[in-house]
């Protein structure tokens, strides 16, 4: 690995004790920073031989503790695998190493009129490898899909140290779609060392509309009508008053002070965008919008997005600590769920700001609290968990783009029954029979891969109603 490739000094290791979810911390035994796929393979071979658990890490911006080190394990940082290997404009493909920063992909192909569509808020710093592990989304996945939509092929080091190629530059390769399974597996199936991505032609016209409503109910009604009219915007984002205040304090985006702010972005051929923007404007007006702005230039568009993109970080301006949640609900349940969040928040006495991808129902409730006040942190954690439970009850999911990681593994049982989780873990056993890759994450309970094959049978205690697997 060379002299720069290994960290064992406790002070330096501290950098790696957590990811973007800072309330979980574990000191790793060591951090290695391989510079090539072959070096990753060598490290993993050693881990396999010595039975050392490992956690892969990109930029460490994850919000669910997916890159949280494990006790007695090592962290494998992919930060030095940061090369763009091949750009193929005629076929709209780009091959990159996992440490390449998300926005650098777009930068690389922008001069040819292309962009890389998944755009998590952290895109200036987060890595493609991390995006692959988490199946990252972003504001524009309503129209363009998620990381998985844009990953064509992967080079992966499996937990036994072998290297395999999943998918590839061409479509529909013979065999199981293991690239599809690997994307979003949160580091539990192996380590990606090379990624073939699809890039997208930049649309002829992109316009963003900002509309101010008195309430999130009104803004939500506008969203429903836009979708019902058959329009598929590139993005629809909503912010409530608390989120607007925070964004204003942080980046002065000059948002109207309103109860529900809507951002709608349309893109495509100019003729179409013009026409549809008229329709969207009319819908917003009829739903009670009292101020509407439409971007006339790229600069104006960036200004409109500035507050939204900064919203999470802006919470620091109005609260010392906060928990970001990532629940998803069917879009139609939006008004009812927002009211319920409001009710729960006032019952506990903690503020909740709402910033979310309204088009696909991906909420980002931000539970605000002060760690220094005794009891607030556990209360905030409980409130965040209760919100997730409500999302699942409304027919949704515990996570739309941040991943399960360490944080929400217990909540998996809200969504999936034991046979469902057991089936997923059987797949895990095919990739990682010794449970070396990011052990302890995603699933509430590990499955021993040597366990008897057969359908899930409840434990006698569970059958007797004496115990419940959470």
């Amino acid at each position, binding site marked *: 690995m060379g002299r720069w490739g290994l960290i064992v000094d406790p002070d330096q290791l501290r950098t790696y004790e957590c990811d973007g979810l800072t309330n979980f911390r574990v000191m790793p035994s060591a951090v290695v920073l391989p510079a090539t796929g072959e070096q990753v393979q060598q490290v993993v071979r050693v881990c396999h031989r010595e039975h050392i658990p490992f956690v892969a890490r990109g930029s460490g911006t994850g919000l669910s503790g997916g890159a949280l080190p494990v006790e007695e394990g090592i962290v494998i940082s992919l930060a030095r695998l940061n090369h763009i290997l091949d750009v193929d404009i005629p076929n709209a493909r780009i091959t990159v190493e996992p440490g390449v920063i998300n926005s650098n992909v777009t930068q690389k192909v922008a001069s040819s*009129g292309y962009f890389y569509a998944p755009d998590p808020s952290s895109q200036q710093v987060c890595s493609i490898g991390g995006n692959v592990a988490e199946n990252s989304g972003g504001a524009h996945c309503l129209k363009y899909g998620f990381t998985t939509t844009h990953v064509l092929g992967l080079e992966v080091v499996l937990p036994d140290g072998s290297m395999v190629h999943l998918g590839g530059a061409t479509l529909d390769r013979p065999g*199981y779609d293991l690239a599809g399974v690997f994307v979003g597996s949160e580091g539990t199936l192996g380590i990606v060392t090379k990624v073939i991505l699809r890039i997208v032609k930049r649309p002829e016209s992109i316009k963003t509309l900002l509309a101010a409503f008195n309430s999130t109910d009104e803004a939500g009604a506008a969203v429903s009508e836009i979708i019902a009219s058959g329009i598929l915007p590139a993005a629809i984002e909503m912010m409530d008053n608390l989120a607007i205040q925070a964004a204003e304090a942080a980046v002065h985006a000059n948002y109207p002070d309103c109860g529900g702010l809507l951002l709608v972005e349309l893109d495509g*051929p100019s003729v179409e965008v013009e026409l549809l923007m008229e329709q969207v404007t009319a819908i917003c007006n009829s739903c009670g919008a009292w101020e509407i702005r439409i971007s006339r230039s790229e600069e104006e568009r960036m200004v409109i997005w500035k507050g939204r993109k900064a919203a999470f970080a802006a919470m620091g301006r109005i609260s010392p600590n906060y928990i970001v949640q990532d629940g998803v609900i069917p879009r139609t349940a939006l008004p009812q769920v927002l009211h319920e969040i409001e009710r729960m928040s006032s019952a506990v006495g903690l503020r909740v700001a709402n910033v979310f991808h309204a088009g696909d129902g991906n909420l980002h409730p931000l539970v605000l609290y002060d760690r220094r006040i005794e009891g607030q942190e556990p209360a905030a954690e409980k409130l965040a968990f209760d919100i997730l439970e409500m999302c699942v009850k409304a027919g949704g999911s515990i996570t739309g783009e941040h991943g399960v990681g360490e944080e929400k593994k217990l909540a998996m049982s809200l969504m999936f029954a034991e046979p469902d989780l057991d089936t997923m873990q059987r797949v895990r056993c095919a990739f990682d029979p010794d449970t070396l890759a990011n052990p302890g994450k995603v699933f509430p309970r590990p499955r021993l891969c040597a366990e008897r094959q057969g359908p899930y049978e409840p434990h006698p205690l569970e059958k007797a109603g004496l115990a419940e697997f959470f």
Partner: protein
Amino acid sequence: MSVQPEDAWAEFRHAIGSAGVANATPADSLPGADPQVLLEPESAEGVAGALRCASKSSLRVAPRGGGTKLGWGNPTHGAELILSTLRLDQVLEHASADMTATVQAGCRIARLQEVLAQHGQRLAIDPLWPARATVGGILATNDSGPLRVRFGSLRDLVIGATVALADGTLARSGGKVVKNVAGYDLPKLLTGSFGTLGVIVEATFRLHPLPKHSQTVSFAFPSFDEANRFTLAVLDSTLVSTGLQVRAQRNARPIVDTRFEGVPTAAEAAVGRLASLSANAEQLDPSADVWNLREGLWDERSESIVCKFSVLPSALAAFSKSLDRTTAAHHLEWEMIGQAIGVGLLKLKGAHPDAYITPIHELRQNLAPGGGSLVVLDCPPEIKARVDAWGDAGDALPLMRRVKQQLDPAGILNPGRFVGGI
């Protein structure tokens, strides 16, 4: 292995009800097997129960939907049982405001689209034989059509699935919301798995609005090179087509069909812009529905074979040249209907079954350096006995075997039909 009818029938009757158990007939045969019993459960639990019984008695199962693609893949190593999903034919939920639908596996595609159309929506996929093909069948075989250029394939549209595993476990994965990253994406694993990992009993899809307007224009090009330059230019433009299809055969001018949908004025403008990209091309009169011509490749079934090919979008022209060379040397005719993104169907026609074997190997060899593939779909049985339907599955084949081993350890589901004999 063979069914001792009396014993097995009793067990299966118990699991799925007597109405769902019958003697199989010659019509239930598929390449490699003449099943003895036909099982038609009417619930997901029934499918799981049937599989549990089959596992217990070590009976091999061929899952079947509409039965339109039973010839695809390698011949099965054997099947005592046919497990039909046709009685699971309900659209369970069309959440039109959320643009999702949950459907049972045995629902025919045309029927599903009919239900969705009542609220102005569609599942944006146009597979072969929609009147007969089922949701479960197109998922298992990963079939797709021209709409793929704009909306992706089934892997991009399926958001949740329930599967019955060989041991009778009924497992859900994914969900009912479009955006969801909780747990492994098993719907993608099942898509294209040819019934070798489990029997899909239910799936949830994201939907798209039905277009209010659709416009197609076709051009004939003097050479395949020029046709390919045109398709690349359209893909590289800011035009958004919902179909970009190349039709070609030996010694004929290749034709490219382009479709625009949505706002009429925008579609009109788009068609206008195509002219500047299609110099040297002759615009053809709009003819029959060009988007359904693929099914015609099966017309001469007894004296031809149909394959699926995949190449890079820029390699279509080179592929056509390789086809010209290979087929000329072996006295075959070829015809392709492909999508500009690089996937398509290829018909080879020859005088004798022997004539195909060497060309298939040759074409695969030519495709391999560019990552391309050629999969034989339907052909006379004697050919599949001599050539693997799939070709090379790459270095992940051992991993694929381990996945199969985990989900179907006894190998009772469609044994032998998939890559590498899985």
